[in-house]
């Protein structure tokens, strides 16, 4: 991960000559219902699910740093602090039971979580977040880093302020928002999707469930939506100062070009699809005509 290089560089700048390394490797049994709670300043955390009811934490760190792993009520907590000098970036590898809920937060932290079947909360200021799987509430937020979700089900809240968001194969309710990043959603099976960005594009490749609600809104970016010919949706378009175009026949009201605010119905119209851009282009196309 590119952020890891930054964390390491920061580490070397800060440590000023203290270079001895130490290994941390501990495994502790955990009862069902326990969650993992990690709070770190910098580095990377890779969490993998395994089929044991125990948690294993491994890390290589400077001898001046201290890793604190403890059982605290219903949580296993992981912390690190410097005994002297400034704290360093530390890379962790953590194996957890698949049922274990995971909550990780940091400032300069890359986070990767693979294979869990429980809820996930991952938050960082600068770093990428990559999650495969998960169930329940999946809350992934980075200010300066990409957020990627593969698979998973439940309710996903994805946020990346400065970078993009990608989600593939997720099922459930999805909220994705960013300021300057783009949002790419593929093979999503959702009854409710809300996507917002200000400076980025939004693209959707997937199905629209009857009675589902989908909202895609951007300020200066474009909205690119793939619509199957069998879709049943009421499409509400608001283009403000932007442009609307469709790669298939759509009947628009006479005043559409003037107001840039109109609705039309496809099939039975049971799903609701709200498309909005202030200054970009809203494009509707068939799945086989990839626009980008």
């Amino acid at each position: 991960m590119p952020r890891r290089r930054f964390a390491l560089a920061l580490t070397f700048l800060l440590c000023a000559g203290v270079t001895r390394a130490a290994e941390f490797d501990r495994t502790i049994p955990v009862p069902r219902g326990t969650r993992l709670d990690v709070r770190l300043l910098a580095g990377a955390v890779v969490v993998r699910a395994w089929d044991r009811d125990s948690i294993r934490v491994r890390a290589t760190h400077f001898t001046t740093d201290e890793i604190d792993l403890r059982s605290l009520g219903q949580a296993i907590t992981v912390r690190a602090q410097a005994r002297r000098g400034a704290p360093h970036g530390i890379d962790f590898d953590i194996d957890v039971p698949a049922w274990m809920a995971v909550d990780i937060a940091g400032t300069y932290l890359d986070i990767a979580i693979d294979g869990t079947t429980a809820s996930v909360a991952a938050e960082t200021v600068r770093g990428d977040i990559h999650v495969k799987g998960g169930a329940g509430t999946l809350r992934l937020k980075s200010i300066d880093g990409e957020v990627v979700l593969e698979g998973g089900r439940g309710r996903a809240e994805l946020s990346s302020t400065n970078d993009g968001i990608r989600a593939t194969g997720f099922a459930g309710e999805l909220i994705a928002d960013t300021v300057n990043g783009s949002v790419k959603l593929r093979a999503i099976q959702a009854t409710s999707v809300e996507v917002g960005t200000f400076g980025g594009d939004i693209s959707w490749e997937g199905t629209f469930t009857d009675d589902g609600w989908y909202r895609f809104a951007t300020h200066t970016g474009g909205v690119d939506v793939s619509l199957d010919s069998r879709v049943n949706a009421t499409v509400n378009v608001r283009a403000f100062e932007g442009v609307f175009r469709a790669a298939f026949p759509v009947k628009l009201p006479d005043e559409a070009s003037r107001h840039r605010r109109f609705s039309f119905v496809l099939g039975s119209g049971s799903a609701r699809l709200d498309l909005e851009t202030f200054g970009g282009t809203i494009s509707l196309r068939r799945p086989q005509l990839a626009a980008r």
Partner: protein
Amino acid sequence: MNRENTRVERGSGGDPWADRLSEYLDGDLPAGERLEVEEHLSGCAACSAVLQEMREVVARASRMRLDSEPTRDLWPGVSVRLRRPLRLAPWRLSGASPLRWAVPRLAAAAVLVACCAALVWVLGGRLRPASTAPPVASAPVAAPAPLVQADREYETTVAELRRAVHARLTLDPHVVEVLEKNLATLDLAMADYQDALSREPGDAQLRSRLVEARDRKLELLRRAATLTESSN
């Protein structure tokens, strides 16, 4: 563009008029659509009930403003108390810091101010008397007094949070740069919405987007402040 095979509907969802009731209540609908809404209301119990509820909310909010508006500006006092911990001790990378409670307070204040600002913003449009003539497009639109107050509180909170975040991110100017870049994007978007609103002051969707952008700006700063505090 081919206009066959589809039919045009106003509004959205099951009841095409349900989300136009707010505009109807505000007196923002053209005469023709207003008549259509009234015709629809005469035969739709659900929409009539929703409209009645909206009228009651507006009436309650109006009474609440008259009864509970502070007689003086409370913000300076709140702001001084929020700032006090920041003056007492410098930020430390590790160990217990007096700042530990400053960020949650700022965050809570931010959320509170955001909610108040959003409420005032929405009600500011709702509470306009129906008989008021719409402003001329080219004339500047004066913000109502509560909005000015909310704006001031909003800007003060944003400035406080910004200072707190900058203080914690001195080691990484890149993140500060990223934050500022994104705040600038949000500022530009807000300026566009405000500009558009000056031309179409009754546009509820524009107003909603403006509130969304303001909330997003506060949320971004709050999150950066909280994260940098909690993980150090």
